[in-house]
């Protein structure tokens, strides 16, 4: 029977009705067969437990992964309304989906990386084709997690995903693992079997001002830039003399961390990092991606809508060129929360979703969400990014 996948999207305020909607829509793509795996993303105002409970009732025994998001992406539509739900339901003869939920990511990202690697090593019989991870987007150092994960994996895997969001409230995000909903945790799904995963990533930011240097940092906290408090440097570039790090500022202004020499693999010169928190007492900024080790050189960066849109479309074109004769069984799009409504207003779908579908495969089941951080490989190594599109196409070999 091959692999079938269906997509559902709903904006109903009632979670039970929304689940009913997405299940009914996704079921049409399965041709009447029961789903083996569900990837689900819900905005934070939905009753998160009711989402997974509803799916388990609709598809008894189904494996579930996913997380809450700032908004959802389904087929050609980005939806950042307060109540939005997106579902990918899959059944496959070629692919198998192994789901994991790791509690305690917020306090020990390295431990979560090692634990996930151990779990993946146990499930991967040499046929793993991709690992998708959905960590809490508010806590934990994702670079630390990724480093520990890759160090302990028995064999290299394509790793991609997105960090969970909560409607830009920056309070609490949720991660799903089968029948369980957790916070401060990490959801993951390992795909094994006959197939492959193609990924591409793009930001769309320009460096501004002179090169700067992080002069004091600890984990994801940057205390000082050029021997001044990090917040004082940031504030100079934020309009309105803000007293706190607001969403507008966090999304507009970010930091570009240069790749180590020779590691960019044709990518941009910088990986972008967005601050997600401020300690008003010390003026330190928190970057969930961390990664300020090394010589500490950085550039401040600003997002550019034209570069964002062009770069996202180029990702889809790159994947299409890599697999010209094949059609993906489904496509995952993890797009930064800072690149949605507040950058493109009411034209998000037309700017960074539908053009990608048109370029890659307009008929492919397509799901994703607006994240608090994207995870995608550059070369052979997985990185945590901000302000990017991370696009993943999953192919099955019949």
């Amino acid at each position, binding site marked *: 029977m091959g692999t079938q996948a269906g997509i559902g999207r709903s904006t109903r305020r*009632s979670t039970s009705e929304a689940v009913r909607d997405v299940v009914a829509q996704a079921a049409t793509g399965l041709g009447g067969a029961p789903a083996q795996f569900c990837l689900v993303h819900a905005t934070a105002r939905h009753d998160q437990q009711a989402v997974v409970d509803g799916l388990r009732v609709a598809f008894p025994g189904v494996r579930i992964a996913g997380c809450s998001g700032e908004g959802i992406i389904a087929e050609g539509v980005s939806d950042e309304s*307060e109540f939005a739900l997106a579902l990918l339901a899959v059944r496959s003869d070629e692919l198998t989906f192994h789901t994991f939920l790791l509690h305690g990511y917020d306090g020990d990202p390295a431990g979560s990386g090692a634990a996930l690697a151990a779990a993946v090593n146990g499930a991967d019989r040499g046929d793993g084709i991709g690992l998708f991870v959905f960590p809490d987007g508010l806590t934990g150092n994702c670079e630390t997690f990724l480093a520990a994960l890759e160090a302990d994996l028995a064999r290299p895997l394509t790793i991609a995903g997105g960090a969970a969001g909560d409607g830009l409230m920056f309070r609490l995000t949720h991660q799903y693992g089968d029948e369980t909903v957790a916070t401060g945790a990490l959801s993951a799904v390992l795909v094994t079997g006959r197939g492959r995963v193609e990924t591409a990533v793009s930001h769309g930011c320009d460096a501004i001002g002179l090169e700067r240097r992080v002069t004091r940092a600890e984990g994801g906290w940057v205390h000082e830039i050029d021997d001044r408090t990090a917040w004082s440097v940031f504030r100079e*570039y934020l309009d309105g003399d803000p007293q706190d790090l607001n969403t507008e500022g966090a999304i*507009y202004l970010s930091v570009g961390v240069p790749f180590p020499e020779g590691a960019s693999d044709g990518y941009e010169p910088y990986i972008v990092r967005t601050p997600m928190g401020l300690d008003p007492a010390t003026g330190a900024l928190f970057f969930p991606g961390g990664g300020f080790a090394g010589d500490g050189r950085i550039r401040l960066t600003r997002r550019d809508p034209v570069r964002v849109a062009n770069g996202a479309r180029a990702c889809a074109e790159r994947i299409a060129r890599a697999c010209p004769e094949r059609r993906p069984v489904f496509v995952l799009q993890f797009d930064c929360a800072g690149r949605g409504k507040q950058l493109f*207003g009411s034209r998000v779908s037309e700017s960074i979703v539908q053009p990608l579908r048109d370029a890659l495969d307009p008929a492919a089941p397509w799901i994703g969400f607006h994240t608090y951080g994207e995870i995608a490989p550059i070369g052979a190594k997985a990185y945590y990014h901000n302000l990017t599109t991370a696009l993943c196409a999953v192919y099955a070999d019949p």
Partner: protein
Amino acid sequence: MSGSLAGDAWQAELDRLRAENAALNEQVKLLVLTEQRLYRSQNELDAQLVLVRALALFALESSMLEEPGSTLSRALDLLGDNFPIDWAGFVHPSVGTGEVVVSAALGEAAGSHVPRAVADDVDTWLRSGPAALWSPNATESDLPCWRLLDAVAPGLVPANEHARLANLACVPLRGTGAFAPGVLVTVSLHPRPAFLRGGALAERHLPYLSLLANHVDHALSNTHLTRRLRERSAELVHSVERLESTQQELLQAQKMEAIGRLAGGVAHDFNNLLTVILGYAGTLAASLSSGSPAHENVGKITAAAQRAANLTRQLLALGRRQVQRREHFSLSEESERTVDLLRRLVGEDIRIELRLDRAL
């Protein structure tokens, strides 16, 4: 000496470049700040356009909705999708009861609301046709609007420090037909990120909410008028049908009257002739000997003339020319006579049978 000069020149050049860089950096900062303002303006404009577009679409669609419930439901969907609100409802005072009813509320089943009692001043305020208002804090206000909300959505606003985060906007509804006047109440319980979702419910939302309330009023008025127009149209069609039927009956009656008048005229003249025939037949019979063949023949002439006279009487009765009088008669004999007349009229292919009770 020359080395020192070169060093000084380098230092001067370096200082100049540093100054240039610093100036450029300041210009970049200015550009960056300006760009942020531009983005903010664009986003505000875009958000306004989205609202206006949604309201225009509602105005178009709601003009085609035939059920008031569908109009209210669509209006609540629009509110939920486009405004930073957690509750919205259409609230009306009940007639003469001091109670209020919610005709529809966001996320709640239609018809699930029971009338709720409100204090006199809240009832008075509601009936007075209140102006649009916005109230930013549930804890600092004893306004009727908040107490109205407490009545129709008890427990919605928490009675703790979170109440200060709740905002309320209220816009009037004119009401029409079966849809009573009242207010559209909208509430946000907690703030949203200002940049993305326009923050919490704010005073700037009032014009849009008022516009929506106007659209709802118009749509319901249209629905009411359309419904009444349809009822009146149906009544008119029925009335026209009845008129046509009456006209047909009148025409038939006029035809019958004309025929009767004609038949009466003919019968009158014929009756005069029969009177002469019967008169002369009687005189002739008297001059003939009884039992003679000629006397018998004259008797047959007299009988035939009398039958003819009967026929003319019936025709005169049809034409209402004969004087009507009340008299006792045999129903059976009259029936036989009438049938005799009918048999001549209906033709040979119709058989008429009489079963008579001779006692009548």
